[in-house]
């Protein structure tokens, strides 16, 4: 069963939202509705997230991604459509049941951290447990574990004002982890941080995810970030423009809108040897330098230049999958790899 499943989900702000949805369903473009002071934030979303997946929703500001994430834990009611968390439909829950669901199943990390300024780090981290009704010693103990998990040991008794931005967001992350929910919603969680700190936090998140295996919905406006951490990415502008893995989106952008985003992405970090390799005939692996299929392109430059023969790409069982040549790498970096011909160039001036 999917951890989160949404079906023909719509959210429209403004007067006459219901009729606006009917019009959207009939095919009226959402730009036309804007002229009537009705804003279609989320249009016809339908997807499912499996347990343990990092699902990234990427879009510009105003693309409805914050609205979307707030619908997933019921902070905002959809105009129409259904959301199921572990098979339970949110619309069928009373306010009390919804609060219970949030306490037990979903926690959230906020863009501007949303910490209580007058509480220490552990007290902030213990907030979710306090709401769950744990007694003080137990919740502080579990909060300390979470603080340690995010690497803030030694800062337990500081106030948020004494921490840097990255550390504050670690507190936000620890608060969500301490609540011990299966689902983690992260609303532009790293967007307010400096680029270096942001990368550090992304690494830490991936590292933690390796240990904890949460279901994570991550909102961002940065496609590089999305590609770095997302198992799958949904590119949104009201409606979902494209949903797929980082490679699928990079190699086959669905339309102009998506292609414009992917133009700015550092492909060499996203594309792997497997994605850029060309077919090969041989089954003999002994004569070649080998690379594993998951290695990103930016780590192939040296081996491919240092080896006279092409690099052999192998899978986990050391079985050959294909070969990588300097040409295949350059081809993969072209804006439109499909347009590159298959023939080898003659090594002579034209």
């Amino acid at each position, binding site marked *: 069963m999917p951890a989160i499943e949404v079906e023909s989900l719509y959210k429209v702000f403004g007067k006459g939202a219901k009729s606006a949805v009917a019009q959207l369903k009939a095919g009226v473009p959402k730009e036309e509705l804007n002229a009537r002071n009705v804003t279609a934030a989320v249009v016809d979303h339908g997807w499912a997230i499996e347990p343990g997946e990092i699902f990234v929703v990427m879009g510009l500001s105003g693309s409805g991604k914050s609205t979307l994430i707030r619908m997933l834990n019921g*902070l905002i009611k959809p105009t129409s459509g259904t959301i199921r968390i572990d098979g339970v439909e949110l619309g069928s829950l009373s306010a009390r049941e919804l609060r*219970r669901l949030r306490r037990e199943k979903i926690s959230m990390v906020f*863009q501007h951290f949303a910490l209580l300024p007058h509480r220490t780090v552990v007290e902030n981290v213990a907030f979710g447990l306090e709401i769950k009704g744990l007694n003080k010693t137990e919740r502080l103990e579990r909060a300390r574990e979470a603080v340690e998990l995010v690497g803030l040991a030694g800062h337990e008794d500081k106030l948020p004002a004494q921490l840097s931005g990255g550390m504050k967001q670690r507190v936000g992350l620890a608060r969500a982890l301490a609540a011990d929910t299966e689902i983690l919603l992260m609303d532009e969680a790293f967007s307010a941080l400096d680029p270096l700190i942001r990368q550090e936090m992304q690494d830490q998140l991936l590292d933690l995810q390796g240990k904890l295996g949460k279901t994570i919905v991550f909102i961002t406006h940065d496609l590089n970030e999305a590609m770095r951490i997302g198992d799958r990415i949904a590119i949104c502008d009201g409606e979902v423009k494209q949903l797929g893995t980082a490679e699928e989106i990079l190699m086959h952008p669905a339309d102009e809108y998506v292609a414009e985003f992917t133009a700015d992405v550092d492909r060499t970090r996203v594309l792997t040897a497997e994605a850029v390799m060309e077919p090969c005939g041989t089954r003999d692996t002994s004569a070649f330098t080998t690379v594993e299929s998951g290695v990103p392109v930016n780590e192939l430059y040296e081996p491919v230049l240092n080896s006279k023969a092409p690099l052999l790409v192998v899978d986990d069982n050391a079985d050959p999958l294909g070969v990588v040549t300097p040409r295949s790498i350059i081809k993969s970096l072209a804006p439109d790899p499909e347009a590159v011909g298959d023939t080898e160039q003659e090594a002579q001036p034209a």
Partner: protein
Amino acid sequence: MIEYLRNWLWTYIWKPLPDMPFGDWMETFIRWARDAWAAGFDAVDAGLEFLYTHLADGLLWLPSGVMVLLFAAAAWAAKGWKLGAGIGLGMFVVAWTPYWEQTMQTLSMVLVAAVIAIVLAIPLGIAAAENRTFSAIARPVLDFMQTLPAFVYLIPVVMLFSVGVVPGIIATIIFAMPPGVRLTELGLRQVDREVVEAGQAFGASPARILVRIKLPLALPTIMAGLNQVIMLALSMVVIAGLVGGGGLGAVISGSLGRLDIAAGFNAGLAVVLLAILLDRVTQGLSDRTPVARAARLAAR
């Protein structure tokens, strides 16, 4: 039809406007209320009288010199030794005037009125912050309460409660309450939306969000409202001397009648020093709220 319209315009727009008897209506209402709710007014009267006399007796139980030291200690505890020393000096000056007793009476009236005003104001402020309709209705009522000239309150209040300390306290409660309501509402509305959202996202109930998140974060602003309530209460309590409110107000209105500069100055000095005491102590307390401390830490 046209005829009717012309007559109407003539009567209400063109001619010098007729006098509407707003005042008479109010008077009728007050007289009616006095008879209809006499038991209620008597109970309020007795209750306030009780609170006031016991508090005043308590403040006057110890000799003035000891009380001065207690005030200084309270100021020290609220802020620090500098304020403690300053307040101690100020209260010594008050004790040296002939009006220590009246000063303690005035302080008692202020405290009784301010506590009741705050107890009423905070729930009203919470209601106004949570409910837009209530806020929209409360705002003009608060404007009315705050801007109606202070003397005007005294007339109906005296009619309902006869002369004495109680009408002064009642008028003071009404006059001093509005900033308590307003600043409670403001403080709650200013709480960071994302932090409230965090409370909701972790499944906290609205009551819990109010108590654990909104009120602590709004506390510095609420304390500023409390400070204003107390200062307004002091100014009104002095005016209440006109209707037999006792304390420094009685001295001041008496010296006004006799053009007694010396008595007026002594009493005025005591009012000023009392105001400084109340203001600095409440400000000191508001600086000690956890959120205010955290904010100072952030500014460093």
